């Protein structure tokens, strides 16, 4: 290594990955239902897609967490997003592709994707 740029490149790459090991109260929490119902309808690829995207984009203030059955099994995979000081947003019938959209639109730009939320899907 001969330059500070090289050091910086490693640092930035690692920060995304190590960021997962922080714990702060103003973190955004992305919660994926990983009970039997969730797993059966494909929650695991959704979970890994979310975790990957958050780290690749270096969103160190976002934690992707699992939870058990939310109680709306027919709408699984379900992803809830809890931002400090904001109302909870619940996305239903997620896929890895939709999850990536959520990261882009919601987590980075702050725009809720209404068409995937439970309110829209339930009608």
């Amino acid at each position, binding site marked *: 290594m001969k330059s500070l740029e090289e050091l910086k490149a490693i640092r930035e790459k690692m920060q995304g990955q190590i960021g997962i*090991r922080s714990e702060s*109260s103003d973190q955004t929490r992305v919660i994926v239902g990983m009970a039997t119902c969730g797993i059966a309808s494909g929650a695991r690829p959704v979970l890994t897609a979310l975790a990957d995207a958050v780290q690749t984009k270096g969103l160190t203030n976002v934690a992707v967490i699992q939870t058990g059955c939310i109680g709306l099994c027919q709408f699984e995979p379900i992803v809830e997003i809890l931002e400090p000081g904001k109302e909870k947003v619940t996305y239903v019938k997620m896929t890895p592709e939709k999850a990536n959209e959520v990261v882009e639109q919601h987590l980075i730009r702050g725009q809720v994707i209404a068409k995937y939320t439970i309110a829209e899907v339930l009608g």
Partner: protein
Amino acid sequence: MYRSHVLVCGGTGCTSSGSTKIIESLKSEIKKNGLSTEVSVVQTGCHGLCALGPIVIIYPEATFYTMVKEEDVPEIVSEHLLKGRIVSRLIYTEMVTDGGLKSLNDTNFYKKQHRIALRNCGVINPENIDEYIGTNGYEALGKVLTEYTPDQVIQTILDSGLRGRGGGGFPTGLKWKLARGNEADQKYVCCNADEGDPGAFMDRSVLEGDPHVVLEAMAIAGYAIGATQGYIYVRAEYPIAVERLKIAIGQAREYGLLGKNIFDTGFDFDIDLRLGAGAFVCGEETALMTSIEGNRGEPRPRPPFPAQKGLFQKPTILNNVETYANIPQIIINGAEWFSSMGTEKSKGTKVFALGGKINNTGLVEIPMGTPLREIIDEIGGGIPNGKKFKAAQTGGPSGGCIPASHFDIPIDYDNLISIGSMMGSGGLIVMDEDNCMVDIAKFFLEFTVDESCGKCTPCRIGTKRLHEILEKITNGQGTLEDLDKLEELCYYIKDNALCGLGQTAPNPVLSTLRYFKDEYLAHVVDKKCPAGVCKALLSYTIDADKCKGCTLCSRVCPNNAITGKVKETHIIDQSKCIKCGACMEKCKFDAISKK
């Protein structure tokens, strides 16, 4: 990319309680459940809560599992990692509240801690340089090499108010400044990792948990004073620390962060390890350098000080591991940030190894000036079994005891000296009413007699005589004259010994004489040991009213000192009794007492 990181403590405490097996088992269970690409297992350094090890933390939830056994692993993997259900029976009980789980940082043990030297311990994988870089590692080195002159580096350290964490408390910046001022063709940077106080494991934990921080700080020191070679003197009795240092040095060389022309700035610096054989005196700076030179580890007179003529007769600086661990953070965050913590003359934080009669045995880092009461009652979780606090011993064999009357004293260098103890490297041993202070003094003297190198007479013979007098007192043969002689000899040794070991060796005696004179008098005048520790002054007796004649005591007595028939009162033959206490432990009727 992994969605979850499982951190397993690989410090010495958790390793000895089986964390290596837990790691293996985690890896195989994770594989079995097809999670290998999603979950990563990381071996870290010490989290501090050694009493509750092995410790496993799972992120991003930051779930803190304590006393994990190999058998618990399948459940953790299938429940927590696969289904996201926390295994509540293994959670650190302090975190469990009525309203769910509270954050680890809000628990009594962590709440008042402020981790600077330990900031990466338990967070990163010490065997992976990338993880260190990910937490801003080597940024400080890059900054000083490209933006600072050596004098600016020294000024920053001077302004921060950092003082040596090895015990003496000499201002680090001043040490560097003196070494910089001395012209020479070669200078050296040394790291004292020869932590030898009984009960101290701060430096060990830093080396095991974050070895790169020491390498980075030594390179910064090398740049500041104009040295190109560093030595880490670490005891061979710390195998994990030695191994991780070797790995770290190898990785740093590979990345060009050690070696020639670092960051293309023309600055050369390399570090080599030197293993010590575990002699306490080699923690003394001149003895340490003599040992690195390949000679028998004996101190030499100062002056000349190491900054003038140190290792191989060249200007040398020698700092302790914890001191170095603060340096990169001071460079990154600035001198003001560091000096805003602590007291007027002691800045920053200090790491303490809590041991003895305390619930949370382990490693804590607190701002200077924290009262002893907070360390013991709040962070340390108090004294087990509802016993009463008697004293805290700081500074190991060079330090002294702090009695309950100074329980509220803010801990810093100068306050501890003023009450006859010293900061030392940071061992803090808590004693309760069951500890005999004369016996404690004798224990430390036994240690220094053993570890005295023998070069100077006051230490070699003086400590031996001190120990003999203490032996006499604990055997019940002491006289009031002995107490006077003891004190006089202490001052004589302090004034005349060659090095720090001898000069401080009488401290345990002096401080116990100062605060616990009544216990010495009880041994000498009343021939009693109030704490019931000194065997020669004890006698076990059987209460005739309580004894049911069950014969159990006479059966367990290893020396057949107890006689008596079934259903009749038993009697202990005092001339045969070896005071092992086995009878008292076994008696079901509480009929045996010791006085």
